[in-house]
């Protein structure tokens, strides 16, 4: 269904662009169009020319459904099996992470595994001065196709397959895209990697794993 709507939308945009180019090349982006001349005698009861989306606005029917939290992440081929804490922001505006790299974090203000769209973000420290190297260190070498399983309350499993693993300089990470709440439902895992700044004690890059749901 989403694909159909997308196709229509793309088609509509394409048609609009075509019409705009051929008919009124210099027209402003959203140009008023003249009223079409009324044709013939009106039917007894008119009908609307276009279907405007409509919903029932009742409180119990039209609220935003809260995201469902993932509670556990497993990547069997990498020996990863971690619990997940729901988190928000740290004081510095970064995503808050548990200090233990063996515990993952889910960004609770964004989508969850059952959300119809957007990226579910699960992150974990790659290492720690206290706890040593964490399981997410193994993500950097995971091959495409690696299966990831998220478990939500009640043991419901959501399966994903890895599309890509990128190591991106922290200054270049497009965070609005990473935390995208629109677009197709997907899973994004984030940790650190690449070179380390031994003075500032921080990694210079994020390792970003993109995975899509297995239907």
């Amino acid at each position, binding site marked *: 269904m989403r694909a159909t709507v997308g196709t229509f939308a793309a088609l509509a945009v394409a*048609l609009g662009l075509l019409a705009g180019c051929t008919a009124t090349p210099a027209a402003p982006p959203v140009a008023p169009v003249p009223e079409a001349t009324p044709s013939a005698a009106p039917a007894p009861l008119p009908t609307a020319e276009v279907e405007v989306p409509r919903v029932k606005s009742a409180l119990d029917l039209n609220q935003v459904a809260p995201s469902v939290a993932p509670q556990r992440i497993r990547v069997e081929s990498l020996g990863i099996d971690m619990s997940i804490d729901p988190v928000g922001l740290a004081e510095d505006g970064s995503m808050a*992470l548990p200090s233990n790299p063996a515990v993952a974090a889910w960004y609770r203000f964004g989508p969850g595994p059952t959300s119809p769209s957007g990226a579910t973000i699960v992150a974990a420290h790659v290492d720690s001065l206290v706890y040593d190297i964490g399981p997410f260190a193994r993500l950097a070498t995971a091959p495409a196709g690696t299966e990831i399983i998220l478990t939500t309350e009640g043991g419901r499993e959501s399966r994903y397959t890895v599309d890509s693993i990128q190591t991106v300089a922290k200054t270049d990470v497009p965070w609005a895209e990473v935390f995208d709440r629109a677009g197709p439902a997907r899973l994004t895992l984030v940790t650190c990697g690449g070179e380390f700044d031994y003075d500032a004690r921080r*990694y210079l890059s994020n390792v970003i794993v993109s995975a899509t749901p297995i239907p």
Partner: protein
Amino acid sequence: MVGEGVSLTGVNHSQNPKQEETMHKSLKFGMTAGALGALVALGGIAPAQAASDVAMLSVLHGVPGLTVDVYVNDKLTLDDFKPGDLAGPLELAPGTYTVAITASDAVDASAPAIGPVDLPLEAGKNYTAAAHLTADGKPTATLFTNDISQLAAGEGRLTVRHVAAAPAVDVLANGAAAITNLVNPAESVLTLPAGTISAAVAATGTTDPVIGPADVNVAEGTNTIVYAWGSLADKNLALAVQTIDGLHSDPGSINAGEAGLVATNQPFESTGLWVGGFAALLMGLGAATVLGLRRAGARR
């Protein structure tokens, strides 16, 4: 925090045909199959280049017991629109639109039950036109401007609008008055930590609910707009809800490492003072490393 809705009751409708014609703007109906229909029907409308170029308009039907037709610039836009229904958002070129609301069996917009009213819509803004009752129970229409400014991460916006045939009310959140003395057709806008609240509506100065209590999800990064509508005298007061998402902020970074144990570079690499594999350093085989770790630990 309380802002007045722009009441459009009794706005003089221009009968100047020339002006009428210029007000027949292109109607574009968002990213649905309807967009294609609109293009076919109206013959080549340029698509929106960006949200800032267009006005967004939703329409709420808050008059109990009356199925209506909604005409925009004399064109039937919503056929058989039922009480409690929310339509849109319509993506419209900025300009003034004339809206007339008729009985559902009307053949045209010439004898409206509400209006005609002129809705001046600006580019980049988001509106809801509500057909509703006045405090004393007469049908009317009000154009509200929806606050779509960005929210801080973790916050939600709650907008409450009184469009019911009822006197002034208080809105109770989790049992305590969060909004007081809200009158038809005013609104109140709150910024709250995201989460579910138990909301109720009571006559102002009282805590005995006339609506609710009901759970309202003040969703993060979303303007959750709650309408109290219906009629106190007719005992059909109800809550309607409209949500506008995408107002969220994102975390600015993810700092997910602090020890350099999986670094692809070596300490002191750039200065040539290479002192060995970092795993060995972690084991505490170098005094410098121990000192470094202690320093780093103190900084945490």
